């Protein structure tokens, strides 16, 4: 297994007390596999991403294990961690404008991690590699001499991807990497990511609020709510046939064009995710849930295999859901 989270918990200490952002997450990504993580702002998905490279602020208390190739990232010394960043795992953030240095040429920024991590590489060789990477992500090599402000949003996001690949990592984490982009540019970047995953056999953990994007790129998808994974399964299945009422609402928020059921009937969910300081009793989704039963107010459901449509009530090990209603094989949408 390339990446494994074992009972990961992250709690922020703040002025309002202890704020649990990730509350026990178990997940795994294999080499060459793509895992999507979906959820709304505040569900803990970005905290999960940051935890992998230990980029969390000092106020975060982290427990559990994050194994990269079997080695626990949380126990690593700083020297080893520095070596793992970029070469073992790298990350593409959402706002490329803020992640790139505005006063340094693109080529130099891509070459920098190569020079830092590979002592034997000469600056000229690193510059050549940077140009090759730019061409690989669909930009002319001459762009190496440009500054970030001379590029469009889509081009900057391509630069971020080139940079993430600079040291040939085994794992790439993309945190809302296409969110601010236009539909067509987003399609271009998603196509590029999918090609690179196949070509280089990297593992990809892709974080997005948009389940439809994840279903287009990822093999598997996990949906997070209030710091926990509430559903996991093959990405297309989770999108098209959700087995948790929250995933169903997320899917419905991005309608399928041409679907008569979605025409003139915007899907959605009233209310907001719960305040992490005051989580509701029982299932944390219950206050917004349309199909909740009595048990949901008393017990917190675990993530268990659930039956899916066509399986004649037999639980499918590939589909897990933390919903009592789904676990009974009942529909999760009204």
């Amino acid at each position, binding site marked *: 297994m390339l990446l494994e989270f074992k009972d990961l918990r992250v709690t922020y200490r703040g002025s309002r007390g202890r704020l649990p952002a990730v509350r026990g997450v178990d997940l795994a990504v294999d080499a060459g596999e793509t895992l999507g993580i979906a959820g*709304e*702002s505040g569900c803990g998905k970005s905290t999960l991403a940051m935890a992998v490279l230990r980029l969390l602020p000092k106020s975060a208390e982290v427990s559990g294990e994050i194994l990269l190739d079997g080695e626990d990232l949380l126990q690593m010394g700083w020297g080893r961690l520095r070596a793992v960043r970029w070469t073992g795992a790298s990350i593409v953030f959402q706002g490329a404008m803020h992640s790139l240095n505005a006063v340094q040429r693109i080529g130099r920024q891509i070459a920098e991690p190569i020079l830092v991590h590979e002592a034997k590489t000469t600056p000229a060789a690193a510059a050549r590699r940077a140009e090759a990477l730019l061409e690989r992500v669909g930009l002319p090599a001459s762009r190496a001499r440009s500054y970030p402000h001379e590029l*469009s*949003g*889509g*081009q900057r996001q391509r630069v971020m991807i080139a940079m993430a690949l600079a040291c040939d990592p085994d794992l790439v984490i993309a945190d809302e990497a296409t969110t601010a982009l*236009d*539909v*067509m*540019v*987003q*399609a*271009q970047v998603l*196509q590029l990511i999918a090609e690179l995953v196949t070509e280089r056999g990297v593992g990809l953990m892709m974080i997005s*609020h*948009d*389940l*439809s994007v994840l*279903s*287009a790129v990822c093999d598997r998808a996990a949906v997070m709510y209030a710091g926990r994974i509430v559903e996991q399964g093959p990405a297309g299945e989770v*999108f098209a046939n959700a087995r948790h009422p929250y995933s169903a*609402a*997320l899917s*419905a*928020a*991005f*309608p*399928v*064009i*041409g*679907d008569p059921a*979605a*025409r*003139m*009937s*915007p*899907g*959605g*969910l*009233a*209310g*907001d995710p719960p305040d992490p300081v005051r989580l509701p009793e029982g299932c944390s989704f219950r206050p*917004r849930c349309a199909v909740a039963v009595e048990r949901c107010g008393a017990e917190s459901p675990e993530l268990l295999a659930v039956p899916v449509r066509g399986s004649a009530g037999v639980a499918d090990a590939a589909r897990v859901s933390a919903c009592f209603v789904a676990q009974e094989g009942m529909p999760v949408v009204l």
Partner: protein
Amino acid sequence: MSSEEKTLTARDLRVEFGLPGGRVARAVDGVDLDVAPGEIVALAGESGCGKTTLARTLLGLERATGGTVAFDGVPLRYSTRALKAYRRQVQLVLQDPTGALNPRHTVYDAVAEGLRIHKIHDDEPGRVAEALSRAGLRPPEQFFLAYPHELSGGQRQRVVIAGALVLQPSLLVADEPVASLDASVRGEILSLLLRLKEEQGLGALVITHDLGLAWSIADRIAIMYLGRIVEQGPVEQVLTAPRHPYTRALVSVLPAAPAVKAAVAEPIVLAGELPDASKIPGGCRFRPRCQEVASGNAAAVLHQCSGEDLHVLGPEAEPHLVACHLDRALHGDAKMAA
């Protein structure tokens, strides 16, 4: 069409901006559009296509350099007084509710601001309460003294909408009304716009980059590319059977139902990005990126694609209009419909 009551109309609208070096950006380059009460029109396109400039011009925030904007048959005038009167009828809803609300103003003050600007002093609390409840914040009195930070994202956007509704406009112009909201909250705001249309006959022009939004709430859709509307018509027709190569490409990269997938089989990922509005290609403006030109499908009409600008599409609600030489060759002359 244009004489219909309370309709917002644009005719051959053009907005140009001077750039350093004497270049001119043609942000809006000939647009005909109608928005009537009781209908939701989606104006869709990528960033830089001119959709926000078009919206600002329709609201009188930007002056047209050519063509006309009219409301209820009367051309827009730009005196302070005339604009003020106009904006009682046509209200703007902004994208980011957190930015649009003053954090130190209560909900009551935020909603009453429009009344105070327009010096409408009779029954202020009653009007504010009514606007809040039309925006779905009920009971309204409960929200009067709340501050924006005490509200959820969806509630904040409802307050912004209530601020627009308090003047009892006939039309809303909403620029990306849900783009900054979380997925699950989007539906709540879109349902509200739909309900305001159905129950109260409010019309809206919704500016968006999101075709799914149009499928959820709009009656008509206009697809904008580089300052022009390239395809326009009823949402069902434009989105399930798109005809302009640009619309076909946009629809092809989105999740779509099997019926639509049959019409647009393979995802068409266009190369490159939207050109600069100061460098609009001659002939058909979409030609340099057009997949039909690249594949040779348009060979028979290529001389037109590269040499002949297309007509500005008319504002008619029906039929489905397309600004494409190839489409015209295949479907007969689109001008006949106009």
